[in-house]
């Protein structure tokens, strides 16, 4: 089986869909000749031509707005926003247009745009290259929100996203583009080759939207998380020595509620984690959902581990990032409760 990192897996996913469906087009800043600042589209313009892999002006609102129009005209656009921190100028087109079109037109119109964008910190990008704004998008009805945690899922979910007739915001946690990450920036980087999810088929396959994955089975505690923090969760659970069931949400909206709640009903304890700012983060929705469904099974308050409610500071990246230590403290708190 080929080994790929997340960038290669994403590129492979794009390649596969572009090859199968000549209506698929890519557009974004620096995605064409150059192949993207993170190289996710490297080589694709050479292969598919500059009319299908299109360099765009620096206007996120224009990229999303024109992509919607392309989608209405039968294309299947994959737009790249260079950093999730720069998606906000296109926010109106996402909320008011992309998310509403099918509904407002009684199902007559739709535009199957996928927006790919790297998110998260851990690359010393400072407060404008580190944000994780996924919670905001989960509040917008009509769009789906996805965040993979490994190369295999990244490719499979991306293909599903592009093929979906619903708009998808596809967040790529850039800290784990090149390898899984246990939260310790001082350790030598680990490549995806050493990880089972770094094995990625060359051809077509999908990972369905709307399904979470149990990454590790356990019966003492359920950890619900996604993206980079899936790996921190594993490391922290091992550190504390708790037999945790770790669930990778993968699709944040719509949510695979059942996988989450069945686990919590089993374990009776739950920790929810994400890198984004805690207040009104997606962990709030996860917490609310779990307590609604699993109240009578809970033996301790659901604990949230998340980024602090500040911007992502350049110098304090590792104090901001919910790493192993903070994660482990959260686990201990849930386990010791009552």
């Amino acid at each position, binding site marked *: 089986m080929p080994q790929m990192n997340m960038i290669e897996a994403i590129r492979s996913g794009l390649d596969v869909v572009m090859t199968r469906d000549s209506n698929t087009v890519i557009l974004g800043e620096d995605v064409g000749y150059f192949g993207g600042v993170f190289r996710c589209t490297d080589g694709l313009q050479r292969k598919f031509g500059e009319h299908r892999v299109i360099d765009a002006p620096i206007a996120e*609102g224009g990229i999303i707005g024109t992509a919607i129009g392309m989608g209405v005209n039968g294309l299947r656009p994959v737009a790249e926003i260079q950093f999730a921190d720069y998606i906000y100028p296109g926010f109106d087109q996402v909320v008011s247009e992309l998310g509403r079109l*099918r*509904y407002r037109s009684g199902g007559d119109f739709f535009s199957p745009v996928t927006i790919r964008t790297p998110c998260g910190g851990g690359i010393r990008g400072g407060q404008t290259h580190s944000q994780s704004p996924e919670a905001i998008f989960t509040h917008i009805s*009509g769009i789906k929100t996805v965040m993979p945690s490994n190369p295999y899922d990244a490719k499979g979910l991306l293909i599903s996203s592009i093929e979906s007739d619903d708009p998808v915001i596809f967040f790529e946690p850039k800290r784990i583009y090149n390898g899984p990450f246990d939260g310790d920036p001082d350790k030598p980087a680990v490549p995806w080759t050493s990880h089972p999810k770094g094995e990625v088929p060359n051809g077509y396959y999908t990972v369905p939207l709307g399904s979470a994955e149990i990454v590790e089975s356990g019966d003492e505690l359920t950890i619900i998380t996604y993206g980079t923090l899936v790996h921190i969760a594993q490391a922290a659970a091992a550190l504390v020595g708790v037999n945790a069931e770790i669930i990778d949400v993968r699709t944040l909206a719509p949510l695979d509620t059942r996988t989450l709640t069945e686990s919590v009903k089993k374990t009776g304890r739950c920790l929810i984690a994400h890198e984004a700012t805690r207040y009104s983060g997606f962990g709030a929705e996860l917490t609310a959902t779990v307590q609604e469904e699993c109240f009578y099974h809970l033996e301790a308050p659901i604990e949230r581990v998340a980024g602090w409610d500040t911007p992502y500071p350049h110098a304090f990246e590792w104090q901001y990032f919910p790493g192993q230590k903070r994660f482990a403290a959260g686990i201990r708190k849930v386990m010791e409760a009552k």
Partner: protein
Amino acid sequence: MTRKSRLHIPHPSARPGDKPDFSYLNLSPAGAADKPAIDVPTREIEHLSLELVRVLDDDHHALGAWNPNLDPEKLQVGLRWMLLNRVFDERMWQIQRQGKITFYMQATGEEAVSIAQGMALRAGDMCFPSYRNQGLFLLRGTKLVDMMCQCLSNTRDMCKGRQLPVLYHNKDANIFSLSGNLATQYPHAVGWAMASAIKGEDHIAASWVGDGSTAEADFHHAITFAAIYQAPVILNIVNNQWAISTFQGFAGGERRPFAARGIGLGIPGIRVDGNDFLAVYSATLWAADRARRGGGPTIIEHVTYRGGAHSTSDDPTKYRPKDEWKSFPLGDPVERLKQHLIVEGHWSDEQHEEVIDEYRVKVLAAWKEAQKFGTMTEGPFLDPSEMFDDVYADIPPHLEEQRRQMLALEE
């Protein structure tokens, strides 16, 4: 405040109580503007954004290079559609005033834009309208009863009860779904046109925004992308002099015509007498030909006047002279085409009145018909459980669950 402000605040030429004053409009005589070939470099046709393309003169004759020399029959067709548009608007306005629909917006005084442009475009060309383009919907075959059912949010509503009145769409007729958010459709049109170019098709796109809406970011996105990729699109700015209470100077119209907005990007602009059916038709055909032959985008500014209130929620006497429209130097597009046809011997006052009467009957009949599909107070009613459809292509579990909850409550 004692300090002396130097901020420039635009002022309309007249406020309530003042005498209307349109001297600020820079008018060229009919026939004065030259008509360049469609492949002339943009730089050489910049002046068209500053002049005014007019075909009909004050005596109602058609003249000059922009005269499209349309058959009288075609002109009659155009006049009829404009009349239908107006009669429809009048009736729907009354209907709203009677409380039978929640909201309405008229195109009164601007009918030539939708009708002449709609006639100049081809059926395969895609339209991304604003809320004053009901004429386009009519012209492209949307039934009166369907438009009324949309305004009623009833069981036959194309929007399934989800949209404010007038936010129509017509997929089969190639008219996009209207948004309540201003100018968002502009980049859609450009993207659609880019896709058409990518596919090597010769369909073009056209979109419309008001003068006020040009200040929105999406206007900029649209002209920028259109210029860069030379998208086959016509970007119309319907300058009816007013946004809601603010005049076109608050969108930057004080110093330069809106038609000039693209010249810094190399997009030619044509400023056209928006109440001159022939001029609008001709400019549109020119821009469409140009786009179809790979010449790229054109901006067309239609100089017109919003004859009515902004919407049924608005009272324009609060901010502009009551009779301003009467003084508008470019008159009324319906009246002008009518007089042209009369002068040319192809129409009469009697015919005109007959058509109006005919349309009043037709519109009333449609209204009767529309109500059969439900009104705000009387059934049949839409099934509220449809509220959960079309959020996504398929209903996800949480919406199924919410639908179930809602139905349980309804019992």
